[in-house]
């Protein structure tokens, strides 16, 4: 039982990472109707920026905040410069553009920081020691990740619910034409959406570097797939769903990995441990087949 709880906590921590990236994906999809295939690479690039800031002697949490600001600005710039020109182009064109961004960020990270293994200093962002409650061993880092994630999600929710800008953002995403009539500059609102998403992705990237060192250009590729799975599970337009989906997926995948050996002993033919990615894939597929709108999404009526 203790073992189970331990694995659940670990799963919640990795689930937080997936949930943050999934939230970023959902934000952009809600705002601009686009699936940003480059979200993972952008997050990875942000993590490298954080690392670089720390290398330059900036204290970790200051670097963390600085990275958020830079990532936010980057997201805004990308929407204005790269996405806006193809706003009215066919869906596939926009997909290709985000794939182009994927290649650019991947290449830039390799070019700027190639070669050696890079890690953040020890005990950053959170101490990696463990403590024990009633026989259950828990890592402080995991708790830190979970709490910061919940805090961020809460802050974001409050922003959307209670502030004028948040309200304007919601309106601009849902009803761009009517929003213009009340004076909302819809284009910039969408850009802010991309900025927020980039900042969330940055947190996901920085936590990934902490939880699954070392820092390397390919580190967010699997996380992106898991984030897709989480977003689909929660409902591609539901921010809350994305977070819940991420947490659930994290726990699920971790349990699968932990008990894969036991499953094999019971006669299950394949070793699932190395197959977490394909498992996530099958998972996405299953959810889309059974309930295409996800747990919290609204069903779109399709009459054919």
């Amino acid at each position, binding site marked *: 039982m203790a073992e189970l709880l331990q694995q659940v906590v670990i799963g919640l921590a990795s689930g937080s990472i997936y949930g943050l990236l999934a939230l970023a994906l959902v934000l952009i999809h809600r705002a601009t109707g686009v699936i940003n295939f480059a979200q993972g690479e952008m997050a990875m690039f942000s993590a490298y920026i954080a690392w670089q800031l720390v290398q330059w002697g900036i204290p970790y949490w200051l670097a963390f905040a600085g990275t958020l600001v830079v990532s936010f600005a980057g997201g805004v710039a990308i929407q204005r410069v790269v996405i806006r*020109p*193809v706003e009215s182009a066919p869906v596939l064109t926009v997909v*290709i553009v985000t794939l182009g961004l994927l290649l650019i960020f991947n*290449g830039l990270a390799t*070019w700027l920081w190639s070669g050696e293994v890079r890690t953040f200093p020890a005990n950053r962002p959170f101490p990696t020691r463990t403590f024990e409650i009633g026989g259950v061993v828990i890592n402080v880092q995991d708790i830190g990740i979970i709490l910061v994630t919940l805090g961020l999600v809460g802050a974001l929710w409050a922003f959307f619910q209670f502030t004028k800008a948040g309200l304007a953002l919601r309106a601009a995403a849902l009803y761009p034409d009517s929003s213009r009539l009340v004076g909302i500059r819809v284009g910039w609102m969408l850009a802010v959406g991309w900025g927020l998403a980039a900042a969330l992705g940055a947190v996901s990237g920085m936590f990934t570097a902490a939880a699954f060192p070392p820092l390397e250009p390919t580190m967010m590729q699997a996380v992106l797939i898991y984030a897709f799975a989480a977003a689909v599970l929660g409902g*591609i337009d539901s921010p809350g769903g994305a977070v819940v989906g991420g947490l659930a997926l994290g726990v699920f995948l971790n349990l699968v990995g932990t008990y894969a050996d036991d499953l094999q002993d019971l006669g299950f033919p394949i070793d699932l441990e190395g197959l977490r*990615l*394909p498992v996530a894939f099958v998972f996405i597929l299953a959810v*889309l087949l059974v309930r295409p709108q996800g747990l919290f999404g609204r069903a779109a009526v399709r009459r054919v």
Partner: protein
Amino acid sequence: MRHGWLGLRIAGVVAFVVLIAILPNFLSDFRASEFARVGIFFIALTGLQILTGYTGQISLGNGAFMAIGGYVSAILILGRPGLEASQLEAPSWLPVGDGMKDIWTIPIAALVAGVFGFFVGLPALRLRGLYLALVTFALAVSIPLILREPETLTGGTNGLNLFGTTEDRLTGAIDNSVHIPVLDKDLTFNDWTYYLAWSIGLLGLAVAWALLRGRPGRAFRAVRDSEVAATSSGVSLASYKTLAFAISAAYAGAAGALLTIVSTIVTPGSFPVFLSIQLLIGVVIAGLGSLVGLFLGALFIYYLPVGIQELAEVGSLPDGLQDAAKSPGMPSVIYGVVLILVMFVLPRGAASFLSKVSFPLTKRL
């Protein structure tokens, strides 16, 4: 089709075929092998065009079908003796013989991949647009990992090496000389791969053209343009959608088999996610629904990464860019930037530009 146009079109096709046939005479051996790979891309693109350009189903996973074709071909070429020689083993229930000539594995690889594609097409029925893109993307990421697992069959991370095979199965790979009895000519291995790839490519193109002209083609386009209209006019959506998946997978499987034969080795790394992305890029560059554009699409996706590197070696870039272009990661960046710029200028691909200059081989709706 008006008669004037018809004459021009036939002339264009003939010119194209002749060009393909005589090109190796003007190319170095190395370039011939490059063009063979362009041909391999061309085959995979033709299949994807049918799926994405004609029925409108976005697939970011056709690299996975190539992988299946590639592995099937390798396993068949090696046969049980070959597998044993590499300390591998095929399960007894698999119809693996004692080793097959490489050319004959191509249609089989296509068939197996096609069946696979059919089964992917079934759940795809319920997915549309970006969801389908997501799922196929996940497929592309997963397949290299899945292929690592049954190590005794696939050779795990090391893959399958064909070099140990006897001469009569691997055409020309070992002595670099292929004798063509009909023409009484000797070809180098690279020239032979060029002709093999492009013969299949042209054959595939002809088949696609015939398909798309006929009833399946009209049905495909009906599916893409309006599902409501298609169903109400009696077109069975489901069967055509899965058929399109199967066909595109078959083409990809043939391409994958060819790639294995040409490289004489296949590993999980032969079919990375990037490959699937490249295929989709190729179709969009070509222009959705255009068969003529596919040639340009294949050239683009093959040569852009290669070209950046080659330009850097040759030194014809301005100084600042020179060093940058050679360093790891830069080619990727340049590729991405070029891609985005091309999308800005030609959001509908080369076809929109081409159709003002010439015309597509099939009648475009």
